């Protein structure tokens, strides 16, 4: 078994772990972290496939590499947007869960 295959199993396990956390953890911030775990597993799978496609003197296929670089930046901006939404929810409602917890008395108050 080569090192590339070991990392492939690692990536598959990261996707599974992230999915489990995404479903079972009730806190939104933990869901965001779990989703990032899924994403990093998917990116690593790209890397494993690209490593196997090494040719022409390159150690790793440049096309999946370029896709992953773009993906990392997009994942970061999505995470930042999700966290901004969460912080705003916490400020406006005083809670950071998505359950039916009671909101603040007057939803029309400016909040800040």
């Amino acid at each position, binding site marked *: 078994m*080569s090192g590339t295959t070991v990392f492939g199993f690692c990536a598959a396990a990261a996707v599974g772990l992230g999915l489990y956390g995404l479903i079972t953890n009730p806190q939104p*911030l933990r869901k965001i972290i779990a989703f990032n775990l899924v994403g*990093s597993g998917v990116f690593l799978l790209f890397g494993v496939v690209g490593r196997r496609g090494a040719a022409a*003197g390159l150690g790793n296929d440049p096309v999946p590499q*370029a896709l992953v670089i773009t993906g990392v930046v997009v994942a970061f901006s999505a995470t*930042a947007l999700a966290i901004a939404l969460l912080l*705003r929810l916490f400020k406006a409602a005083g809670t950071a*869960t998505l359950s039916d917890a009671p909101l603040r008395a007057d939803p029309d108050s400016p909040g800040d």
Partner: protein
Amino acid sequence: MSIATIFEIVLAAVLLGLGVWTIVVRETFSATVGFVAYGLLVALIWVRLDAVDVALTEAAIGGGLGGVLLLGAAARLRDADLMASETPGEVMRASAAALSALIAAALAGAVVLLPDAAPTLAPAAVANAWATGLSNSVTNVLMAFRAMDTMLEKVVLLLAIVGVWSLAPDSAWDGRPGPRHETDPNGVLAFLARLLPPVGIVVGIYILWTGADHPGGAFQGGAILASMWLLTIMAGLADTPPTGRRWLRFILVAGPCLFLLVGLVGLLSGAAFLSYPPALAKPLILGIEVAMVLTIAATLGLLLAGAPERSWKP
């Protein structure tokens, strides 16, 4: 294919251990710290996979800036941690575990069953490198062969910042993002914020410039510039700029606009959208990358700073 070394197996095991910790640990803050460590190890794996460009991006954006973002959010949401939120029951958790295990096993199976003469675009990317004059094939794919993806990614960054800013309360519209950081002006953080940026800015620009021929480029360089900017903000030496400032908005759109403009010129001059004439390819790509590095640095920094919270009026 070589046999896996002890180093690779230990690296994979520690990585998975951190992944499990991130999911099962009780406090959100500990989970966040675990995820930051996880991100740095992922960067190491990318080095082992011979993808140094991705490793640099992962370390700077995934591990570094992403870590600061998550740690900041976890610190601000600490009170929310104390509130009891209902956890799913046994049956729910067991079925989620079964589903996740099934998907992980299917992916692991796919890794084992990959075709043995792996399909690859590497020879095509190397053979066509003459068309741009850059010898880093990852930069070639990003900026020329798949330039459409990269341009649209700039638009995604712009949309993300529009989304974050639109969460501002009315009173802070056009105001400064995030809280004002106050630290001891003689403390360690303020010292680092004076010492590191001159070095970091040079390193960031070097990584941008060397990206044409070696691992590096606008993303990695931009992330380093953004972290230097954030360091001075967090040390209280500078404040986040009001989001209404013209120059700031100009920098945010400069990268995507220049990219789009070059793309349209390619379309009008005959060949195709985003095609560069080979004689001008290198200066055009470097020009776009210089505009992009500023846009990326400003966008990443502002995404971390968050929604406007304070009115800029005194």
